[in-house]
C-alpha cells in the first residue's frame, strides 16, 4: 500500500494505492487518526488505484468515518472507486452509507 496526503483548502485528500489487506490496514488507520488528531475532520479518500480492499481496510474507513462525523464536525468521503472496491462496498452494504463521488475534484468540491 502507498499513501499520500494533500492538505486542500477545505479538506484533506488521501490518495491510496495498491493492496490494502490485514497486514497494512492498521497503517491506513494510523494515518487517518494522525489527521483527525490534528482536527482534520473533512477527508476525501481517492481509491482509484487500490487493487484490493479487505474487510480490515473497511474497518479502518468506518472507524475514521465515525470519528469525522461525530458532533457533525465533518465527513469522510470516497472518490474514484474502481470495480473491485465498488463490489466490496456493495457486498457489505456500505455503498449507501459513504458519500461516493465519481471524481476526486467533485469529492473535494463537495466540502
Amino acid at each position, binding site marked *: 500500500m502507498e499513501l499520500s496526503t494533500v492538505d486542500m483548502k477545505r479538506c484533506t485528500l488521501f490518495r491510496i494505492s495498491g*493492496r490494502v*489487506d*490485514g*497486514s497494512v490496514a492498521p497503517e491506513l488507520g494510523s494515518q487517518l487518526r494522525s489527521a483527525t488528531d490534528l482536527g482534520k475532520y473533512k477527508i476525501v479518500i481517492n481509491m482509484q488505484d487500490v487493487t*484490493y480492499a*479487505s*474487510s*480490515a481496510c*473497511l*474497518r479502518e474507513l*468506518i*472507524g475514521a*468515518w*465515525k470519528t469525522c*462525523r461525530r458532533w457533525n464536525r465533518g465527513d469522510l468521503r470516497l472518490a474514484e472507486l474502481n470495480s*473491485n472496491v465498488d*463490489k*466490496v462496498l456493495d*457486498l*457489505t*452494504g*456500505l455503498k449507501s*452509507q459513504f458519500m461516493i463521488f465519481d471524481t476526486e475534484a467533485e469529492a473535494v468540491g463537495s466540502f
Partner: protein
Amino acid sequence: MTSFRRELQLVGTMADLPRIGEFIEGACEQAGIAPAARFDILMAVDEACSNVFEHAYCCLAGEVHLSCETRDEDLVITVRDHGRAFNPEGVPAPDMGLPLEERPIGGLGLHLMRRLMDDVTFSFSPEHGNLLVMAKRGVAMAGAPAPRPARARKPAERKK
C-alpha cells in the same frame, strides 16, 4: 473426481497475506478458473487467512495449510490451522439495515466469505484443529486445467 490440486503450507503472520494471495492467484490461473470468479476466491481466502492469523493465532506466527482443488466444475479451497477453536455461531452477521453509526465494527470478513463463495463450512477437532472448506460452483473448466508453463530446460550435462 479431482483433476487439479495445489497445496501451500506455511508458518506465518498477517505479513504473509500477499504471498497467500499469489499462491491462490497462480492456482486459479493453472486450474483454468473463470477470470470473473478469481477476485471472489482471492478475497474469500484472504479474509479466511486474516481471521486465522488475527483470531486463531492472536497475531502470533502460526501454521496454516491451504489446498486448492477442482472437483468437476467446482473449485474447493480448504484452510486448516491449529490455533484457537473458531465458532462461527459466535460472530453475529452484520445488520445491513442499521445506520453505520449504530453498526458494530466487525464480522465483515465472515460475511464477505459467505457472500463470495457458494459453500462455507467450519469444523473443529482437538486433534486436527480448525478446518474451513469453501466451494465456488461451476467455475472450473471440468477436467481441463490450463497447461502449466514450460520449465526451462537444464543444460545437458557434458559426458566426461
